[in-house]
């Protein structure tokens, strides 16, 4: 009988705690720097594309979502630094599983995975990203934690845990006060 009373007091105490909810669209929890999100294609400093159209990324892709059609560079139309360039480079984000194998397979670091994960669209066609979209500077919408936190060799377990800012019920730091949302309770 005493146990039942104890149980009810536990739930009653929880009723008066501050919720640990993070209000997502208003507050975006930073992802860690190696988070694999939307892809980016890169250029050399002189403006030439790094991608040479070798299709190794497409070969490595387990979900077969990359389509590369290569063409020869000509002196009049020099797009990439190599012999050939990617005339068509498409990634179907509806199929992509964000495994990062394309990044590993690429011999020129031409494709990397960024941090953006808010990729929803209302049609499937809109999810096919073309080369222009992938070459563009990504719209930086996703905050990410500082790379310095992760670049040093880690010595102690405590430091590892400290990096991740564990939000618990007893430590509601990081839960933003939003006057508009949830103000009543």
């Amino acid at each position, binding site marked *: 009988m005493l146990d039942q009373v104890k*149980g009810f007091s536990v739930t009653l105490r929880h009723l008066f705690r501050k*919720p*640990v909810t993070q209000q997502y669209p208003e507050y975006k929890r930073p992802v860690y720097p190696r988070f694999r999100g939307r892809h980016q294609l890169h250029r050399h400093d002189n403006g030439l594309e790094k991608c040479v159209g070798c299709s190794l990324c497409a070969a490595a892709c387990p979900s077969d979502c990359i389509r590369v059609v290569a063409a020869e560079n000509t002196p009049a139309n020099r797009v990439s630094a190599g012999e050939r360039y990617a005339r068509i480079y498409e990634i179907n984000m509806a199929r992509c599983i964000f495994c990062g194998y394309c990044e590993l397979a690429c011999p020129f670091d031409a494709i990397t995975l960024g941090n953006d994960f808010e990729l929803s669209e209302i049609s499937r066609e809109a999810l096919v990203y073309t080369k222009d979209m992938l070459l563009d500077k990504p719209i930086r919408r996703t905050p990410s934690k500082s790379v310095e936190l992760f670049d040093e060799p880690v010595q102690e377990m405590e430091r590892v845990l400290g990096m991740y800012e564990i939000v618990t019920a007893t430590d509601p730091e990081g839960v933003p006060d939003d006057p508009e*949302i949830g103000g009543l309770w």
Partner: protein
Amino acid sequence: MVDGPWITIIKGFVMVNLLMLFFAIMTWVERRLIGRFQVRLGPNRVGPAGLLQPIADLGKLLRKQSMVPDGARPRLYLLAPFVSLFCAIGAFGLMPFGGVATVPGTDIQFHLYMADSNVALLFVAAMGSLGFYGLLVGGWASGSKYSLLGGMRAIAQLVSYEVAFTLAVIGVVIHAGSLSFITITEAQEHWVWYIVPQFLGFLVFMVAAVAESNRPPFDLTEADGEVVAGYHTEYGGMRFAMFANAEFINAITLSALAAVLFLAGPEGPWLPGPIWMLLKIGFFLFIFIWLRATVPRVRFDQLMSVGWKLLLPLATLNLLVTAFFVVYG
């Protein structure tokens, strides 16, 4: 009818609509409270603090396609939710909300209850039980095994808890000497709230009431881990909403019944009757929600053994002791 037909019709109309409004607000309150019990926020997007969430839900449910599954008995399938909702609203009808009130600006006086029936308690119990036909018929007519099991469970649960429920209530009836809610509340005002002399009966009543209203931890009729959604597995859109509506209104009715039988209903100092009644209903609904947030669902054999082996003997004991003290005390 204590006020003549016209005022009674208007009162009935107002009462049903207020009940629906109260139901809508209570669904929001329940979801917010459950959220806070689980250290999260609950619905807070639609309108200020999420208050328009019930309207958004209503809009969504109204727009859903109305369909009858293959293998269902169409007429009964379509009828069942109406039976449930009709009985749920009907059972609430006799709840007293105070004495005589005056329409502002006129001399027209009316009573804050629909009728002073001398079998009000019996009527509420009867309507509550009739409502279960909606569950059984709906479960059977859906043509699905899960629905049928849910409906059967509902009836089995009703049969085992109705007995303890009624016996617990009879203690109050012996004290008041009447089945009329008006007489029962007045008797409590003149003596003492029945929660004091009838505390054992009150406990039995509360447990049986949770089982009667099919709310957690006794919501075996719609235990999603076992029978998907029980009797309303095959229902969607507004028909599902009517079942949910009926179920919640049953919880409100049982809260009101607890308030009338054990806490003297609308009687109380300083505040007017309807406010007291609402406060007491709210108190019992909070207990219902608190229970839901705390206790896990029981197994069916546990449900049966609690009903027959614990509540029924306790209620009988309570009845005998009450009768003894009323006759010889």
